[in-house]
């Protein structure tokens, strides 16, 4: 702790904190134009200069840590004059197009110009002709750009794309794509979010609305399990129509991130069909007669609870393999870890100084996890060791070691990792014996992970004191998931490494905790599909379903995120039709509104008995997540250490495909949005093409859990190895099985 004073107030700084950070923590205002909390300081605007007694000249507060006893002044006539001068410079030749600029009304340049009263310009610089760049979903106008560098910092330090940079040229400086003529990135759009002026804008939103006309609806992103906070900006469609439309999505960019699917994939809302009453009645009947309901995890806790209550009432089965496997996984994890759920959140992951990733293509499975790993790597110097059969090119600039294991051998690989992490730890005898008796020679041979790779992992993590292991969905859906989960539990409990299990979908955790799920292995008639396949389909995703229910952004309710938080989401757009709750009412569960079920969740372990309307939904001034509440995790459960021997690792010979989605695609919601690229092709390396006897452009039949689909095949020069990548986002059913498939790829005539 360093004690010093700011404007006469005694303050204390933690190690590594800057003067600006301390000031903000104490609520003392220092103006900035280029500062964004989640990156290292850009230090370009110079507005945050302060005076320190005894030090000549101004001191920059954003990148200077305090020394004991200094007396800082944040405002004086001298400082004010210089800040005014800086604003004068910022305003020199800035195009006077506020009338049409997207940013007008929420523009930092406008705000600071007003704040410092710059109402005249008494000098100028030579004008220069500059052209707007069109970078796909993003437009860049260099003449509006104030070169604060926020976009560049965020892209590199938090997202990890490192796709833009400054072209240095003094007055001619500009933002350019890095190592490319046009912008080649994952289009997260964080650059738009952090841009304080109208230089970087969404090409779709551009010139469609003034900021102040938009109504802001705080909500949760539907596309993966990260539970990212976002804000739907809503306004009427046109002067003729008072029907609302989502114009854009914004996020709390100061502290949090949003990927491109969340930002640009917002138009997945749906309209009820004309004969909605008829559909409704059919749906009621279908449910009454249902033998089972099969549903996806992209629903709210309240919907899940309604389905559970209906199950209790009508005795049908509830199918959701994703949540059921996840629940089992947690149970097995709990049996060795003593914790009902893993207890790491993304904030903690981003502060790790060592990361192990296994069983996922994390950059596309869960971009928020990727951003946390990027932050850890770039800002904390975390060493990242990544185990997977398919190398993830997007992660190269953060990954220190990539180890390729044989498809199917995750259980063995994890045992090797566990054995290494538990070296020199006090272990109960049964664990010691377990590891002593494992045939590591066999495991190494079958998994192709040699002792040298494990030793190398240890070398990388040698100096790490705060390591997180990120476990992906390949593990949860694995045949050996039971033992895998137990090994993860052992790692979590007995090593210094904390485990983060990445849930598959928006509300996988919530559903797994709320519903009593049945194994989906019988061929039943009268299955009602709820956002999934069935004989009668109720869906918010399919226009041609038997009954349409509102999409996630047309509903209010809660979900449980990867951070194990119960988060509220709100209605961005009205839905003039029936909901699941309406059906439930008809079937005798009497709640007028879906959100009346929020309080009922309290009867389920981990949830609280609180009204929906009392849940907060915002971030604090310093980035504290004040949304919803923490899901309560049991951390002192009984432990039993009966792990399975590892002696039959599966072999995947021949042609193998991996079900994984491309950047920006996740599910049928993202598949139907206007802005996101949605070509669903099977991709493979040259080597894969040879092994599968395919040529670039061939159309093949692919078997996905018994369903045959057609896919165009493309050779992807970025891929290596003999595993092809098959997307599933466009399929009209959920794929919850182990993501690697041995398959025959039959060529079909086009």
């Amino acid at each position, binding site marked *: 702790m360093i004690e010093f004073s700011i404007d006469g107030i005694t303050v204390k700084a933690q190690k590594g904190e800057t003067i600006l950070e301390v000031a903000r923590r104490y609520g003392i205002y220092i103006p900035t134009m280029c500062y964004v909390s989640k990156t290292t*300081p850009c230090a370009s605007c110079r507005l945050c200069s302060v005076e320190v007694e005894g030090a000549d000249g101004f001191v920059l507060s954003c990148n*200077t840590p305090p020394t004991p006893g200094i007396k800082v002044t944040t405002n004086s006539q001298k400082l004010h004059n210089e800040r005014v001068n800086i604003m004068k*410079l910022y305003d020199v030749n800035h195009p006077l197009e506020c009338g049409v600029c997207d940013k007008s009304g929420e523009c930092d340049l406008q705000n600071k110009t007003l704040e410092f009263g710059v109402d005249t310009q008494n000098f100028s610089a030579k004008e220069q002709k500059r052209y707007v760049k069109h970078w796909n979903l993003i437009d860049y106008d260099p003449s509006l750009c104030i070169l604060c560098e926020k976009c560049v910092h965020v892209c590199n330090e938090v997202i990890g794309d490192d796709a833009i940079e400054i072209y240095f040229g003094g007055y001619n400086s500009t933002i350019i794509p890095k190592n490319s003529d046009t912008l080649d990135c994952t289009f997260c759009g964080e650059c738009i979010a952090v841009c304080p002026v109208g230089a970087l804008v969404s090409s779709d939103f551009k010139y469609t609305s003034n900021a102040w006309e938009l109504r802001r609806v705080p909500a949760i992103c539907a596309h993966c399990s990260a539970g990212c906070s976002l804000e739907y900006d809503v306004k009427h469609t046109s002067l003729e129509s008072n029907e609302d439309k989502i114009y854009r999505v914004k996020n709390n960019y100061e502290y949090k991130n949003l990927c491109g699917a969340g930002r640009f994939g917002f138009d997945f809302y749906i309209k009820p069909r004309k004969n909605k009453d008829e559909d409704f009645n059919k749906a009621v009947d279908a449910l009454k007669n249902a033998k089972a309901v099969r549903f996806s995890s992209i629903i709210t806790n309240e919907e899940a609870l309604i389905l559970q209550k209906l199950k209790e009432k009508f005795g049908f089965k509830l199918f959701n393999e994703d949540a059921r496997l996840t629940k089992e996984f947690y149970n097995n994890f709990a049996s060795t870890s003593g914790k009902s759920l893993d207890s790491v959140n993304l904030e903690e992951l981003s502060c790790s100084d060592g990361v192990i990733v296994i069983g996922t293509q994390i950059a596309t499975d869960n971009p928020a996890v990727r951003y946390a790993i990027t932050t850890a790597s770039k800002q904390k110097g975390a060493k990242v060791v990544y185990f997977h059969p398919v190398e993830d090119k997007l992660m190269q600039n953060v990954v220190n070691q990539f180890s390729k294991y044989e498809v199917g051998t995750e259980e063995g690989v994890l045992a090797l990792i566990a054995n290494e992490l538990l070296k020199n730890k006090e272990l109960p005898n049964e664990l010691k014996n377990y590891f002593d008796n494992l045939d590591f020679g066999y495991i190494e041979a079958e998994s192709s992970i040699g002792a040298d790779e494990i030793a190398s992992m240890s070398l990388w993590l040698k100096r790490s004191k705060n390591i997180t292991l990120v476990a992906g969905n390949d593990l949860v859906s694995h045949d050996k998931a039971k033992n895998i989960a137990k090994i993860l539990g052992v790692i979590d409990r007995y090593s210094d490494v904390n485990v983060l299990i990445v849930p598959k979908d928006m509300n996988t955790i919530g559903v797994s905790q709320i519903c009593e799920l049945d194994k989906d292995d019988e061929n039943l008639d009268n299955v009602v599909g709820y956002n999934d396949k069935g004989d009668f389909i109720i869906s918010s995703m399919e226009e041609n379903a038997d009954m349409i229910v509102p999409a996630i952004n047309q509903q209010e309710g809660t979900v449980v995120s990867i951070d194990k938080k119960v988060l509220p989401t709100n209605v961005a757009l009205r839905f003039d039709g029936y909901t699941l709750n309406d059906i439930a009412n008809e079937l005798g569960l009497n709640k007028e509104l879906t959100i009346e079920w929020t309080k009922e969740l309290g009867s389920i372990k981990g949830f609280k008995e609180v009204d929906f309307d009392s849940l907060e939904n915002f971030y604090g001034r310093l980035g504290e997540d004040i949304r919803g509440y923490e899901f309560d995790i049991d951390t002192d459960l009984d432990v039993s250490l009966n792990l399975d021997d590892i002696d039959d690792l599966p072999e995947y010979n021949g042609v193998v495909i991996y079900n994984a989605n491309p950047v920006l695609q996740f599910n049928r919601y993202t598949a139907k949005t206007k802005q996101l690229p949605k070509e669903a092709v099977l991709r493979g390396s040259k080597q894969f093409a040879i092994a599968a006897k395919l040529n670039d452009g061939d159309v093949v039949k692919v078997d996905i859990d018994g369903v045959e689909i057609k896919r165009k095949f493309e050779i992807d020069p970025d891929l290596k190895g003999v595993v092809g990548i098959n997307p599933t986002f466009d399929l009209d059913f959920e794929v919850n099985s182990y993501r690697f498939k041995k398959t025959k790829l039959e060529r079909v005539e086009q």
Partner: protein
Amino acid sequence: MSKVYFSTWRGELVDNRGLPKDEWKESEYNLPEQYEEHRASRAFIGWDGVSIFDDDVDVIKLATEYAAQYQIYSEACGRCAPGRWGGRILYDMLDKIARGEGELSDFEHIKEIAKSMQLTSKCEIGKTVPNPILDLMTYFEDDFLDCINNKKPSKHYTQDELDYIAKITAPCMDECPSHVDIPAYIEGVRDLRFDDSLMATRQTMPLAHTCGRVCPHPCEDACRRANLDEPISIMELKRLGADYETDHGFGFFHPVEKKPSIGKKVAVIGAGPAGLTGAYYMAAEGIDVDVYEELPVLGGEVTVGVPEYRMPIDRYNKDIECVKDMGVNFITNHKVTADEMRQFEKDYDAILIATGTRLSKKVRCENEREEIKGYWGAINFLDCINLYEKFGIKVPKEIQQKQMLDKDYVDLTGKTVVCVGGGFTSMDVVRCSVRAGAKKVIMIYRRDEKTIIRNTTYEEYHEAVEEGVEFLFHSAVSKIVTDENDVLQKLIVSKFELIPDPDGGRPQLKKIEGADYELECDYLIPAVSQSANFDFLPEEWDLEMTSWATLKTNGRDYMTSRKGVFAAGDCEYGPMTIVNAVGQAKRAASVISRYVQTGEITLTDEEIMEDHLRKLKVYDKNEKVTGWLPGLPRAVSEKLDVEIRKTNNREVNLGFTQEEAIAEAERCMRCYYIAMVAT
């Protein structure tokens, strides 16, 4: 001393206006009054003032051009609001006045903007560009007002025939023998753009891993931050970029794209730091380079001299691979002969000699003979250790025999080793001896602790002491005593005292009579200095030598007395640092790349300016630094614990953690300056 018409350089006001030339008062600084041999300077303008050598110089135009150079050169900056826009406005308004269209208010606005830039700019370039401009506006106010009031162009505005040559520098860059763009690579660390950081380093220094670990960092003695608190840990921040490239398995981030072959060939003799560097930059220019190396391994003294625990070979190999990646051809195990050199002269368009200094000098004592068993030259001693430790190459039988080794590697278990030295090589000898299991390791040095630290580094000395090396200061071996089999038995050591020089020079050593004593030991390793071996040079070339028996060049273009034959590194300078060898070889490569095309020996303006600034000295240790909070301590990286490290070759310096590195980089004040000469 320089003859000036007018000067405000470094606060010294010399004003000879109105005086006849022979009465001009001189400036005490080494200003670049003569740009080149046949080209005089008219004016010099920079961060610390302006000097005018010719009374006909148009000062308004001079100020305008300086502001213009800030625009052109602001690739190095242009990163902050005051600098980016302020610099442009400064230029626009100065030019307006120079055109004859200026208003009085412009004159005032320039002052206002200049003040803001001085106070709030991000780096020194923005803070200092206004300095000489304001000097000119102050001392030549009448000239400015004349243009403004009479609406007329400045005196040579339309027929300006002067050349303006500008260069970016910084105190650290100037002091670095390789002139590495240090603020740029530190900025790369601060911005977490490690690829940019590495490319900034590699513009003038291909051995980023190496000089991020074992450079004696003269730059840190010229770090302006020392004027405020402590110098930046410049050297260690260099390795972050290199480690980033290696640790993530990227291809090599070259600072330039290799040019297509220009059909010229150069032979480089020696694959040490100088040879590697010369080869890298020549290959980048499209020259086909063959490097001949006598040893079976590449890398020269850094490979066979510098021990593994200071410079892990897998990291150095990355530097070497980077050179290979530029398309350099290496021929190892090839000791070049005089006949070959004659042939090379015909086959190649130029030759760069970079053979270093690989002969250990004697300690100069009684009975000192090469054949004594246990007398072991430092170079050979370190060759034996490093070739075995890094490549598994065993000690040759004849050396095993001579040095009484019972294993095929250097095992000193139970032995007492005495090293005579005081420089880096001797430190390597004693610390390697500790790791080879020696019972006792003693360093004999004629002077004191302070001097040994100055000759090496504080860390190096401190770590050796920690590892148990005994230092005998003010001592020298006066006699070697051997037994009947000519095996080293003991040494007679004399003691000295330092007699201070009343004129403030280096203190004199005076032997203390009767203080001699005996010191029993198994090995005496002379590591006092090295000399070059030139037995491969054709006698008839009769290359001119320095008094130190190294190849003579003019120290600017690195050509020897024979046309087309160049020399760089220790064989030119004498045993010196890696960074010195790199700097020389980089310059030589530049000169050669023009020589092979034109047959002329030339320097670029950049290089001429570099030499001028070096003479002038950019760093001013008395300057008062403003605009920064003093008292922020220098980051110190974690070292491997002495008990863990002294029995093995693990890298001792673990390097900065990311947070330490960022914090340290944030201390850098980006002391870029622009200097400009008008000729």
